[in-house]
């Protein structure tokens, strides 16, 4: 529809860009003076879905699981065992499991919104939402480390590499501090955001571009459907990326916590 209007009105293809991710002009509704946009609703919807699923699975947990309980236990157990226990270690991992499970499934469902029909927008292509999660992760792993080693002890743990001659310290200490304390949350947020943003941009480009080509006629009758085939292929690739980004985000969280708890760098 949009492609048609563009083609009819200007005859020029307007490539999708950052504006395709800006919903501030088209809020769904207002609460007080606050404009509630689609990604905000998605964020809430994602949380509701995750909680409803897990609550339904855990509500009447029995020794011999029901079908929904088995599904919930498998999902919970995957993050608990393969991320939590394997990375953090069996001594401390249990108290971080709820956090890791929440991070993984919250991000996973919000990423999956990019593919779910009629929603089709990855929530975390809104950078600010990814920033928030990365900031929380930064607070958590630093707090965990400071609680265990004390402030200076933790700074030393994260900044001073062991097994390196002190002569190298002037070079390595700032570098380690920079990479372990300052850069981590930024990369964490940007990785998630950029993957979702780029994937969605690509999908819009191929979908609207295909439509425009069909409207254009001539070679477009061949190129347009081809673009749509590619769009479908990219959608499948995006499914993988959605899962992978949720997994990587959670895995890195676990590794940061594990590093903060470690006795030696």
């Amino acid at each position, binding site marked *: 529809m949009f492609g048609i209007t563009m083609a009819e009105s200007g005859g020029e293809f307007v490539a999708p860009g950052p*504006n395709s991710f800006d919903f501030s002009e*088209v809020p769904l509704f207002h609460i007080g003076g606050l404009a509630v946009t689609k990604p905000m609703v998605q*964020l809430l919807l994602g949380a509701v879905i995750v*909680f409803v699923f*897990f609550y339904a699975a855990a509500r009447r947990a029995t*020794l011999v699981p029901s079908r929904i309980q088995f599904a919930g236990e498998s999902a919970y157990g995957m993050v608990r065992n393969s991320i939590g226990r394997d990375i953090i270690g069996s001594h401390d991992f249990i108290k971080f499991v709820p956090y890791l499970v929440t991070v993984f499934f919250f991000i996973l469902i919000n990423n999956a919104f990019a593919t779910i029909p009629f929603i089709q927008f990855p929530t975390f292509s809104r950078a600010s939402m990814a920033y928030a*999660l990365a900031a929380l992760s930064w607070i958590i792993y630093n707090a965990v480390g400071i609680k265990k080693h004390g402030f200076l002890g933790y700074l030393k743990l994260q900044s001073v590499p062991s097994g390196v001659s002190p002569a190298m310290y002037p070079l390595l200490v700032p570098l380690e501090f920079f990479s372990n304390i300052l850069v981590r949350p930024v990369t964490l947020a940007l990785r998630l955001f950029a993957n979702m943003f780029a994937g969605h941009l690509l999908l819009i480009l191929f979908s609207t571009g295909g439509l425009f080509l069909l409207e254009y006629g001539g070679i477009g009758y061949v190129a347009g459907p081809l673009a749509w085939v590619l769009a479908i292929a990219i959608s499948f690739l995006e499914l993988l990326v959605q899962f992978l980004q949720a997994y990587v985000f959670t895995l890195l969280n676990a590794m940061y916590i594990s590093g903060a708890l470690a006795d030696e760098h």
Partner: protein
Amino acid sequence: MQNLIFLADGEPAEGGHAPENPLGFVPVEAALSLVVFGLLLFLIWKFVAPRFEQTFAERTQAIEGGIAAAESKQAEADARLAELEKQLADARHEAARIREEAREQGAAIVAEMRETAQAESARIVEHGKAQIEAERQQAVTSLRAEVGTLATGLAGRIVGESLEDEARQSRVVERFLAEIEADSATTNSSGSVN
């Protein structure tokens, strides 16, 4: 909804407001993200994780309990088996002992029997010998008497002299026998002279 999506994609470009920096920080969204995530985390922490962990623990315990029960059963069975084997060994030992005893007893009985039999046979032999001796003696006696009678009878007939009388007869026989003895002695001496 569908309309919204396409509007959302198209509207800003048509509306023509200043393009947003996609990396820009939108406080409302960040705050909402934190709040929603925090709520979800709280709910998972409070209502989901403990129940799953409890179930896992119960399941582990059930499995371990089952294993423990199986182990105790196994130990019991092992003990019974050992006991039975011990009983069997005892019985075998007892049987061997009884057999040995019986063999010894048998051997003793055989030895005793043999001894008795030997004694018996010796006794029989002894008895036989004594009887034979007695009979021989008797035979010698009766033979001597008979020979005497015959010889006297014969001699009486030849010499015509009755030797019926007991005393005479006995005297004659004695004399006769003495003569024979003397004769055989002279023959022996003459023989040696000749």
